[in-house]
């Protein structure tokens, strides 16, 4: 499939601060590409440059053949944007919001009306279409936010962390919507700091940290970077100090990495079965009670940890 997005060494500086330090990647038509990284990694800045909101300090990108620096208006016609923060008029109804934004994208007349009804159906808000957005739940507002991005049937949809701050049910609905859109042929650039979302949705993932794209590929390609490993997840009590255990675990033969997030200790190893007994023994020696142990196959969290030495989420 041809590339719908080609990013070439995009850089963005704010004064002395380099928010994006020269990223290069492509997205093929029809795929879901996730940009995965922690908060402050440069995901939103990247999307803002690609959507022509910010001018790059240097570098360029082309969307459906149009340069973001030289032909921004053509780029805007080709893309849909679902921003991280809700961008709706709360005193207008969902239908009024969609009608207005559709007009901003050049739709009019019966084409606009029909398309608005179609999108209301897609986002599941036909019955509430006449109510003002300010009466909606957070999840419903997010759905309208997505609906606005779909109105003009863009070639490429940018979704910037669309599930932040919403309930699990609404989150599930959004992820299903993304998959449905993709089945209908929509290409999606999806940014997130949730590994599970990237794993569930994406054909390919780009891992971004401190403004740099540190890894890119399919999930299999990425997890292969950490080798044939497994991860032991130990759940300890809230009053226990995990740091005391980590240095002890690192001394065990077969343990590659050990890290703690809150009261969950991750131990990366080639064979979980070989290290389980010594790990439990070390915990008992220090009087730390282990509530439960899980074994996980390599995932993007592990990849991130392997590449940066830090957890994906603080």
């Amino acid at each position, binding site marked *: 499939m041809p590339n719908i997005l080609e990013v070439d060494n995009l850089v963005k500086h704010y004064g002395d601060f380099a928010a994006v330090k020269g990223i290069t990647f492509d997205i093929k038509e029809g795929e879901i590409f996730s940009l995965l990284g922690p908060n402050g990694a440069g995901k939103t800045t990247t999307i803002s440059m690609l959507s022509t909101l910010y001018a790059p300090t240097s570098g360029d990108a082309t969307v459906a053949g149009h340069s973001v620096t030289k032909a921004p208006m053509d780029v805007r016609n080709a893309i849909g944007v679902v921003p991280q923060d809700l*961008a709706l008029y709360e*005193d*207008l109804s969902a239908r009024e919001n969609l009608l207005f934004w559709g007009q901003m994208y050049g739709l009019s007349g019966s084409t606009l009306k029909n398309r608005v009804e179609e999108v209301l159906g897609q986002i599941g808000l036909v019955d509430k279409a006449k109510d003002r957005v300010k009466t909606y739940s957070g999840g419903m507002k997010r759905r309208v936010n997505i609906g606005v991005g779909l109105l003009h049937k863009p070639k490429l949809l940018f979704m910037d962390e669309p599930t932040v701050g919403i309930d699990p049910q609404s989150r599930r609905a959004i992820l299903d919507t993304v998959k449905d859109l993709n089945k209908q042929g929509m290409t999606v650039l999806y940014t997130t700091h949730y590994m599970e979302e990237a794993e569930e949705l994406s054909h390919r993932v780009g891992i971004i940290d401190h403004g740099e794209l540190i890894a890119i590929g399919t999930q299999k390609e990425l997890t292969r970077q950490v080798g044939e490993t497994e991860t032991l997840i130990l759940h300890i009590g809230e009053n226990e100090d995990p740091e005391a255990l980590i240095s002890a675990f690192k001394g065990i033969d077969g343990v590659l990495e050990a890290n703690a997030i809150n009261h969950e200790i991750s131990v990366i190893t080639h064979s979980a079965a070989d290290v389980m007994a010594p790990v439990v023994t070390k915990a008992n020696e220090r009087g730390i009670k282990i509530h439960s142990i899980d074994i996980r196959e390599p995932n993007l969290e592990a990849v991130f940890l392997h590449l940066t030495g830090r957890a994906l989420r603080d």
Partner: protein
Amino acid sequence: MLKTLLIGIKDVKLAFRDRAAIIFMLLAPFLLTLGMGLVTGRFSGSSSSGISDIPVVIVNLDDGELAETLVDIFYSEGLADLVEPSLGTSPEAARQMVEEDKVAAAIIIPGGFTASIIPPSEMGMIVYVGPREIEIYANPTRPTSAGIIKSIVDEYLSRVEEGTVSGQTSIFQLIRSGRISQQDAEAAGQAMGERLQNTAGSEQLAITLNSSTADGEEIEFDVLAYLAPGMALMFLMYTVSYGGRSILAEKAQGTLPRLLVSPTNSTQILGGKVFGIYLTGVTQMLILIGATSLLFQLKWGDTLGVVLLVFAAVFGATGWGMIITALARTPAQVGSVGSAIMLIFGILGGSFISLDQMPTYIQTISRITPNSWALDGFTTLALGGTLSNLSTPITALLTMGGVLFLASVLLFGKKNLVQK
């Protein structure tokens, strides 16, 4: 162009769905107008005029023709509906009537008033009496009525002075040219004095109670015709700053960045926001005019004049809304500054106190406000003027709006509406 209109219409819709904005745009000016109407007695009695039958007592201590003429003016048919004069004999008693709130003012014409203007002659000599001033003892609880009495007297005195100066000049010129001798100057002066008396006593005063519309209908002066526009114009400044605030509010709430990533350029967006402010202001003014016309039977005057004046006034005010927004950084700043400007312009512009009662330098400063120009225009229309009488205020308002708009565009150009 279409997107500009659509953005503007969207903003009008949002403004009229904001309950707080509705209170300030419509309810507050309407209720204040109603309150002022009640205070001035506009709604009591069968007359539609709030100012009529102003009680005034006149004490004439002079036995001259000019004093008699002034008294006759107050008893003339032309002022029959406006004033209710009575004659007093004692200045002290007249002042007492003012203090007891029985009259709006006492006019005390001192002895020797006529002689001070038309010097008598005795044994062939012209006797100069020296200046004599008419005292107007005004009732402070009836400032409007007292102001009207004062205006009538002032108008009379200005005619007297005009006639006096022209008379004196004429006599001196006649003497210098040798056309009359000094001995004949007295007779010439007396003749001019008689003509002066007739001129000053002319019934055609600058203050006329009645005037006609183009249809020949008589218009009665309505105090609400001054108060209602004053209130509407003051709260118009709230509307334009509210609209300006929405520009920065959209930046904060994310809809402005969303507009900027749609195929809509900055000019269309800014133009749309400005159009929205303008349209909201025009709608507000027309609703207030319609409501006061319907409910208070307020006659605003010539319809075309009113509509075009509204368009010009809102244009001038919108310029101020834009400049405030261009200088502010946050919606809250626009809100605070806008509220302050609303009150200051209301006071300076004559919404509370007639500009005529303010010092000259304040009247000059007031010309930076759209309120003062527009209020001039609305008062002219209410007193029977037409569009042809509005060229000065409309030109001033359009110029004000144009200059401020250009300045704000330059400032917006330097300011990033989103970080770039």
